[in-house]
């Protein structure tokens, strides 16, 4: 591979179904196995795995369905999670640690503490979020490979 050229080395896309709590975490576990096989730095895998699991649980809790796209590039591992769902009316508020609209059922599952989105941002080197209320949310985040 040529230095300085950003190349796509591996890509795969996964479907996450809303409300499917029993499978919540499966996609993140599969992505972790793939990154491990590709020889990505374990510390970066851990950061990305935490971000992925938070994003996956957000889809299960709040959306109908989403596609998670993994792209392993020469310079970064990039994730896009695009969902069909209720969207986020106030992104700034949703990014505040502790702000949550979770139901008791979500908390009983161990999630909904209002830490998800801030934690995805904290564990990634690039982060962006777009949302249309009533349509859905798209998260893009990446960890940069050194």
């Amino acid at each position, binding site marked *: 591979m040529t230095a300085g050229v950003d190349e796509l080395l591996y890509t795969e896309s996964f479907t996450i179904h809303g409300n499917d*709590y*029993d*499978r*919540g*975490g*499966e996609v*993140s*576990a599969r992505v*972790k196995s793939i990154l491990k096989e590709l020889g990505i730095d*374990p510390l970066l895998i*851990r950061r990305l*795995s*935490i971000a*992925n*699991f*938070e994003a996956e*649980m957000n889809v299960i809790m709040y959306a109908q369905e989403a596609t998670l796209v993994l792209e392993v590039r020469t310079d970064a591992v990039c994730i896009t999670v695009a969902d069909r769902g209720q969207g986020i009316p106030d992104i700034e508020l949703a990014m505040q640690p502790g702000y949550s609209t979770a139901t008791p059922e979500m*908390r009983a*599952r*161990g*999630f*909904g*503490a*209002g*830490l*998800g989105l*801030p*934690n995805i941002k*904290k564990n990634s080197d690039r982060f962006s979020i777009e949302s249309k209320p009533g349509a859905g949310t798209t998260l893009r985040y990446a960890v940069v490979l050194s």
Partner: protein
Amino acid sequence: MRLSSIAKVLEADWLSDGVGPLDLEIATCFAADLMSEVLAFCAPGALLVTGLANIQAVHTANLAELAGIIFINEKRPPQAVLDAAREQDVPLLTTALTMFDACGRLYEHGIQPARKG
């Protein structure tokens, strides 16, 4: 402290015989029922003490690189969760102790908080 010694200190039963390295030295612990808090604040390598006996606890341990899980208050997760833990190499234990008792005993035996640094 080895996981096998921790099991004795907490009077715990193994739910996952032969899963994970039993001679692994564990120095830190994190206790929570909210996995979001574990994902946000727990450093890798810690033992997780939790009352949440579901599949999300196992995924949390695997994805956040934790040493294992001890369920409190005699909780036992369903078979599907035990199967997932085996597949993901996450050792599971259960104790009749409460969260406070379990953490107190671990603290007494020199286990430190798993602060994220």
